[in-house]
């Protein structure tokens, strides 16, 4: 992945960039898991609580015709949590490191990268919980997981990183972007088939739902975990969609980054 940043890697070695990312990710993880595994429960608690709420609202009260609804919810909520946490915190991530950016000449794109990799690790740690739920619903793990998980991981990574680069850099120039981002995420959540299935959406609205880059990814994760299925066509469409968003975010970030120290 670092190959994409070749223009940035003029004087320093790959080793240094690798160390920089790993140290920053390790920092967040260490802080979270220091002396206790409670940190792990925090990354489970949020999606589990949401799952209970949605289960009650949509299964118990509204009676959506979806089988294994709680498992269905978790398969979408865990990856969504990674996406939403990373993108939601992205506007503040550069501001939080202002003192470094203003003084040390180092590649600033590493900062949002470390932040989303940190959330990614939490997501990966929740996969055993998904498998456990699958076990309860008599879904046996499929060999497709072996390559399906890395594939969807990469697609979601590019989408998340692209949006993080975009929001983190623009927020330095328009400091109220943070509020708009949380609104955007709320909107996107309802446009993403996390707690409903696309089959329940009226045909007229399919276009809007599928235009949302997160839609394919959530469907992909769910098909993978619930059915052991991997739709190659769906994957490539949303992989390249995510990659496109990544490049847009990356170029805007690169364009703005020489000005960061001016406005911080």
């Amino acid at each position, binding site marked *: 992945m670092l190959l994409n940043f070749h223009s940035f890697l003029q004087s320093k070695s790959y080793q240094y960039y690798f160390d920089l990312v790993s140290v920053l990710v390790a920092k967040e993880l260490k802080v979270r898991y220091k002396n206790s595994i409670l940190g792990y429960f925090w990354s489970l608690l949020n999606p589990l609580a949401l799952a209970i709420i949605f289960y009650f609202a949509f299964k118990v009260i509204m009676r959506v015709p979806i089988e294994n609804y709680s498992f269905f919810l978790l398969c979408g909520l865990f990856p969504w949590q990674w996406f939403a946490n990373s993108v939601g915190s992205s506007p503040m991530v550069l501001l939080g490191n202002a003192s470094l950016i203003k003084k040390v000449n180092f590649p600033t794109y590493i900062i949002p990268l470390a932040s989303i990799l940190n959330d990614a690790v939490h997501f990966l740690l929740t996969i055993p919980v998904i498998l456990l739920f699958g076990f309860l619903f008599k879904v046996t793990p499929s060999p497709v997981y072996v390559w399906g998980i890395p594939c969807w991981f990469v697609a979601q990574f590019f989408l998340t990183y692209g949006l993080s680069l975009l929001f983190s850099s623009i927020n*330095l120039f328009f400091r*109220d972007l943070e509020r708009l981002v949380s609104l955007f995420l709320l909107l996107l959540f309802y446009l993403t088939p996390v707690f409903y299935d696309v089959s329940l959406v009226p045909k007229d609205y399919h276009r809007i739902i599928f235009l949302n880059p997160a839609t394919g990814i959530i469907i992909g994760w769910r098909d993978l975990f619930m059915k052991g299925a991997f739709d190659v066509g769906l994957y490539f469409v949303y992989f390249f969609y995510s990659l496109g968003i990544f490049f847009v975010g990356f170029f805007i970030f690169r364009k703005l980054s020489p000005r960061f120290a001016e406005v911080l």
Partner: protein
Amino acid sequence: MQESVVIFERVTKSYPTYTYITGGFKNFLIHLPKSLKGFRKRYTVLREISFQIAKGECVGFIGRNGVGKSTLLGLIAGVLKPDSGKIVVKGRVSPLLELGAGFHPDLTGRENIILNGVLLGMTKAEVKAKLDFIVEFSGLKDFIDQPIRTYSSGMVARLAFSVIAHLDPEILLIDEILAVGDVEFQKKSFQKILEFKEKGITIVLVSHSLDSIEKVCDRAIWLENGGIKMDGEAKEVVSAYLRS
């Protein structure tokens, strides 16, 4: 005369008057015509400034608030880009960060040394190789596995200094660091800076404390109205500045 390690040739640096920044999109849209005009307006902080700093020299910049002293350090560090002119910097530049910047309070001293060392440009292996020396140098051996939120600010600063001292900087940038901490600590950091100087490290210092400039620096540059008002021996420049 030693070779020059920092060369500024007719360097101009201006800042945008992003008045809409703190207001965000909301203010930007409400005051759209004004904001659009503000987009292009910039104010010039440094105007066609030229100077050279030789290897091993210790130079202090003085001048009123907002005259562009910290901007100069930013330009040397490479975090700011000049509008025009040429800047040449030869050698590894290490900025002395504000107290605690790049540290995390919940991590131990040891973990913070690695974090800070990598942030300032060393690889992990390099920091690890020097770890024992850094700990030794800081004199915090007994506390090194405690989270640094339990440290006093003097202890944090000692740790930060120790990391910097083992970075092997060739050019050290110091922005008002001497103003923090108690008298005891100020004395110590003073001592450290003098040690750096003896090692032949080029030091660029920005400070409001004329006293420390006079004590540490051989040469001082007085900035006023975007240009150099006076450049010469530290004592002379400081006394001229005081008289003005």
